[in-house]
């Protein structure tokens, strides 16, 4: 029935779907878990501890041990809890973490579905987390959980606005919502990335990063699960695998948030045009994408290891008094910019690129300075 050409196309399409599903299940779920190990090691280094180092080489299999432990534990559902909602909430949170991977642009070919509303779908689906968290907080029938859930709802909904406004500038410049379209509008050279396109985009990228920290309940915005105030926030009553689901989703969402920023502002999977065959190029693109995302994930771990938590009213005022107006300014500014320079301004891109390099260099120098200064010099060997 099918011609030779058609069957070839079918084979390619099937191969892509299979590869994507494999990537999803080989990368998405374990990634969220492995990132816990990375985070614990990074965090331990920051805090001058050792961190998990017993299970596997350098404790690499710690996540597996933790997972097995959690599965084996008793799943406690409080007597007074609203059982159906209580049971369902973690799945909703995990759903909100699994679905965005469908439009995750790993490389030019490796994408499950290049929706023409990709980025919109991404923001809409990740916001689903709030329903799960609120459900968990309400159904636990615990006041601390409820406060955690309400805080989370307030926080995620508020920060959706600056995050959404920070996506607009890029959409204005490219005129597309598709993840692949956004990446194809950039190039591998950093000065072709949208973060350096104009000053408004630069500000928007930073706002997007901070907002994504808030949306994922990361420090300094980890109020919904503030362990010193709310015990464990919305997850107080959860145990066993359901508890694990919340945290897997949290760590997985870090990847997704970083992927959104990389796609929009940091050139996505773009690599130099080298004459390799399709598979090699795709592999290189995949690595390029992953490295960029992991750098952002590392930065968010670093922030978690450094900063205290803000108070709820401060968090709200950061969002509504600073980020939302700034987001609007960025949007309008970019609109005007696009009207004047429909194809971008090469000079400004270069200037912004130089500025970006200068900021990173100054920051790196400061970090190196403090690392040198803060080296521990003294160790008493206890004699008794």
């Amino acid at each position, binding site marked *: 029935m099918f011609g030779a050409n058609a069957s070839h196309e079918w084979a390619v399409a099937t191969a892509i779907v299979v590869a994507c599903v494999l990537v999803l299940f080989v990368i998405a779920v374990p990634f969220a878990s492995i990132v816990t190990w990375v985070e614990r090691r990074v*965090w331990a280094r*920051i*805090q*001058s*501890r050792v961190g998990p180092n017993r299970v596997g080489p350098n404790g690499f299999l710690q996540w597996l041990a933790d997972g097995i432990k959690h599965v084996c534990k008793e799943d406690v559902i409080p007597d007074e809890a609203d059982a159906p909602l209580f049971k369902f909430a973690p799945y909703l949170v995990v759903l909100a973490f699994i679905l965005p991977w469908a439009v995750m642009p790993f490389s030019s070919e490796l994408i499950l579905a290049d929706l023409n509303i990709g980025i919109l779908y991404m923001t809409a689906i990740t916001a689903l987390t709030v329903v799960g968290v609120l459900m968990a907080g309400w159904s636990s029938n615990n*006041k*601390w959980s409820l*406060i955690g859930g309400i*805080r989370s709802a307030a926080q995620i909904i508020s920060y959706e606005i600056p995050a959404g406004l920070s996506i607009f500038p890029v959409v204005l410049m490219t005129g597309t919502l598709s993840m692949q379209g956004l990446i194809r509008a950039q190039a591998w050279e950093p000065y072709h990335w949208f973060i350096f396109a104009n000053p408004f985009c630069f500000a928007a990228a930073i706002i997007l990063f901070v907002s994504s920290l808030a949306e994922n309940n990361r*420090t*300094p915005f*980890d*109020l919904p699960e*503030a*362990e*010193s*105030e*709310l*015990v464990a926030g919305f997850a107080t009553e959860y145990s066993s695998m359901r508890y694990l689901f919340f945290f897997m989703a949290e760590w997985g969402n870090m990847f997704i948030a970083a992927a959104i920023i990389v796609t929009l502002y940091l050139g996505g999977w773009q690599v130099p045009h080298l004459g390799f065959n399709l598979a090699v190029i795709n592999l290189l693109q995949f690595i390029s994408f992953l490295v960029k995302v992991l750098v952002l994930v590392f930065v968010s771990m670093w922030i978690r*290891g*450094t*900063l*205290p*938590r*803000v*108070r*709820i*009213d*401060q968090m709200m005022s950061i969002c509504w008094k600073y980020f939302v107006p700034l987001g609007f300014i960025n949007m309008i500014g970019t609109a005007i910019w696009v009207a004047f320079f429909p194809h971008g301004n090469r000079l400004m891109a270069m200037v912004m690129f130089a500025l970006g390099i200068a900021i990173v260099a100054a920051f790196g120098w400061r970090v190196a300075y*403090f690392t040198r*200064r*803060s080296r*521990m*010099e*003294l*160790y*008493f060997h*206890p*004699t*008794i």
Partner: protein
Amino acid sequence: MTLNMGPQHPSTHGVLRFVIKADGEVMREAIPDVGYLHRSIEKIAEKVGYHGFMPYTDRVDYVCAMFTNQGWAMACEKLAAIEVPRRGEYCRLIAAEFNRLASHLLTVGLMGMDIGAMTPFLHALREREMINDLIEELCGARLTFNYMRIGGVAWDLPPGWREKALAYLDHLDPILDEFNALFSYNKICVQRLANVAAISAKEAIDYNLVGPNLRASGVKWDVRKDIPYSVYSDFDFEIPIGSGEWGTIGDAMDRYMMRIREMVQSSRILRQALTRMPEGPVLAKVVRNFRPPAGECQIRVESARGDQGWYVVSDGSSYPWRVRVRTGSFAAMGIIQKLSKGLMIADLVVLIASLDVIAPEIDR
């Protein structure tokens, strides 16, 4: 909404309980409920005798047990008019000041943890571990020291200890700067602590606050300077008071910074004490069946948590007739109900941490 915070809650520093009447995130009132860690330590004193009570004093405040040791020893010495050898006093002072450093390091670290930053806590504990190592060499214990005896201290400084201690002080001073750079002057930290739960000088005196909490409100009162005991009058040090440079005088930030500044002063005292150490015995001759003459005495010690009072009544037998310990944490608990009106739940955690209450010291 009535919230029950504690007795098992991560930020209540042991077993405290607060009944919080809250309107959303804002508290109408937080009523402290003390008594969860009452172990009748004062009553035990009446049954175990003067020497035997020394290990129990460690448990009055396990974070700075040297001061409770010292308070009890000084009370007994005052009752029986025992003269402590000069080197013994120096050993006491050095151990106590190191203990003050350890206690304040824990406090500033816990402040970090309570506002959500783990790293300052672990960095502070890393430094505290070294003090624990030093004290372990000194007396064999890391938490409940039982180092002092009636009439002096149990052991002299071990050989080489002085050099180690001085090396540690050289190490600590830059670490405090680093700690400030990491945490104290962090924008979020200042925003969280400044202007939170400010206590005026009058309020602080009315509510009987002592120690760093009182000094943070601008009242210059320190037992080490004003009623000098032991050999504190030999040394040159300053009493830092709250300046309100980040917000109002006596706010949580002032109380927090008070601990950092006191660590600098403790380090100063320790340097002087370690270099000027006299020779001689460390323990006076005290009979084993210690029977002070009938009478009563009141002793004041400046512990890490403030003016600690020891009131001992002797009836001439080998058991004290009555012992009473007056501790700073209990007084600090009293003011929480007043300050908590209009604060947020997150601020209550800051307030508890900044008042530096230690649960066993509240109840004894």
